[in-house]
């Protein structure tokens, strides 16, 4: 494409944006809103995923031992656990230490323990971590079968619930995004249709004097892409400031919450929204060109 032709196309795009100013604004607005929501869901889902996998990777198996084992037997159980495939680390927690920890967790309410006074109700235990999250369940089941093991438990329920939640949000988000994307494509294609209609005389003359189909199509396609791109840009800017505000609030109140840090995460999201906007614009105008521009 010659530079002069590109100049011509760009001028045509701006003339056209100005001519359909309200429709152009409406298109940009819908693209911005749709992509903003898309970005929001993306951020929420990615954060929940991160949270779930960080919880999952931290999952420990608590192996509670039977009460009447001697030290040698306890060591044997520990060795057997260490020899299992996928086991990363095994730590022995004697019942006395467990009680200590329990007291710490109770904090000011540790007076509750005075009721049981001298007897320690907690069992001796091993804390086992595994190399990969998928080993958790099988390892726990294997350990449970060992002699001298009372039970082997892990936070299966929490992780599974979290995954259910992300799955739900993902499905919900995807359907909303789908609906919004269709609406956006529709609005952009309508805008382009108006442009095509406004220029039908020019298009006819271009055909008579031998302009190629692509020469005729390009300005319309570019118009759609520009509309989508501006919408994407607005969505990205809004989302960046929103995320910055929300992360600050969350860090102030729930410090342990493992949010994805702003950079470079937000840059990826912004790039994604821009590209998404341009793609939506291109699809919208292509639909219009197919239906209304008989070249």
């Amino acid at each position: 494409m010659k530079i002069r032709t590109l100049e011509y196309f760009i001028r045509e795009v701006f003339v056209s944006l100005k001519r359909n100013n309200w429709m152009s604004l409406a298109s940009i607005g819908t693209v911005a809103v749709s992509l903003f929501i898309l970005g929001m869901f993306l951020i929420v889902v990615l954060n929940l995923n991160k949270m779930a996998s960080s919880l999952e990777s931290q999952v420990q198996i608590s192996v509670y031992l039977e009460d009447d084992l001697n030290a040698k037997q306890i060591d044997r159980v520990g060795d057997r656990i260490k020899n299992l495939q996928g086991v990363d680390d095994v730590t022995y927690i004697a019942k006395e230490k467990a009680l200590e920890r329990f007291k710490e967790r109770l904090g000011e309410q540790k007076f509750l323990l005075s009721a049981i006074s001298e007897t320690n109700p907690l069992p001796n235990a091993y804390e086992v971590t595994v190399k990969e999250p998928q080993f958790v369940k099988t390892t726990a089941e294997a350990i449970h079968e060992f002699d001298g093991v009372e039970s082997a438990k892990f936070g299966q329920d929490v992780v599974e619930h979290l995954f259910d939640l992300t799955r739900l949000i993902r499905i919900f988000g995807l359907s909303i995004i789908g609906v919004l994307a269709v609406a956006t494509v529709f609005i952009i294609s309508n805008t382009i249709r108006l442009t095509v209609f406004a220029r039908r005389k020019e298009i006819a003359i271009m055909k008579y004097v031998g302009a190629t189909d692509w020469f005729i199509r390009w300005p319309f396609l570019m118009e759609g892409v520009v509309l989508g791109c501006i919408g994407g840009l607005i969505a990205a800017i809004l989302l960046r400031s929103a995320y910055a505000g929300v992360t600050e609030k969350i860090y102030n109140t729930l410090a342990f919450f493992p949010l994805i840090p702003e950079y470079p995460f937000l840059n990826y999201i912004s790039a994604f929204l821009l590209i998404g906007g341009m793609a939506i614009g291109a699809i919208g105008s292509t639909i219009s060109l197919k239906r209304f521009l008989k070249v």
Partner: protein
Amino acid sequence: MIIKMKDVSKIYENGTIALDHVDIGIEKGEFVFIVGASGAGKSTFIRMLFREVLPTEGTLDVNGRDVLKLSPREVPYLRRGLGVIFQDYRLLPEKTVYENVAFAMQVIEAPRRTMQKSVNSVLEVVGLKDKCKCFPSQLSGGEQQRVAIARAIVNNPAIVIADEPTGNLDPETSWGIMDIFRRINLSGTTIVMATHDKAIVDTMKKRVIAIEDGRIVRDEAKGVYGYEN
């Protein structure tokens, strides 16, 4: 032959037979009138030449291209060799005379340095150089048609195709337009013109092809209109 129609028929989807087994050849540099009553098939004949209408059967060669075998991608290149003029001028109202003519060069990506020269020279041919900054609405019908002619010839087409170019003009103005066509023809450009204008056809003494009900009923070298208006 620059235009060669062999056994060409056109049947529209509604069953209308617009052209019925037409055979015709037009040599390079000829000036040909297509005459006939409204609905006789003149328009279909003219529009086939620049492939706005495709023949249902037969073969059609225009300016060295087999029109029926052209892919959509090649159609623009067929049209670049043709200049088309309509009864209703079809100018762009928001562009000046100069811009209307230059537009035809712009959209085929003609080099810029030749553009100004070409546009000015064709505006001189049609006698509108001093009105190049005017908008179509500021011009008379005859002047607007001259702009359309300038636009049609600015890319040096081998064939100029005109569909009733004087249909909206008074006789005096029509003569001015015909004089321009005559001069374009003298420079070697083939001209095919559909017309209803008896006076023009009878005076010009050019080849006349008469179409009735989709058939060629008369083809005379220095013909007359042959119908009563």
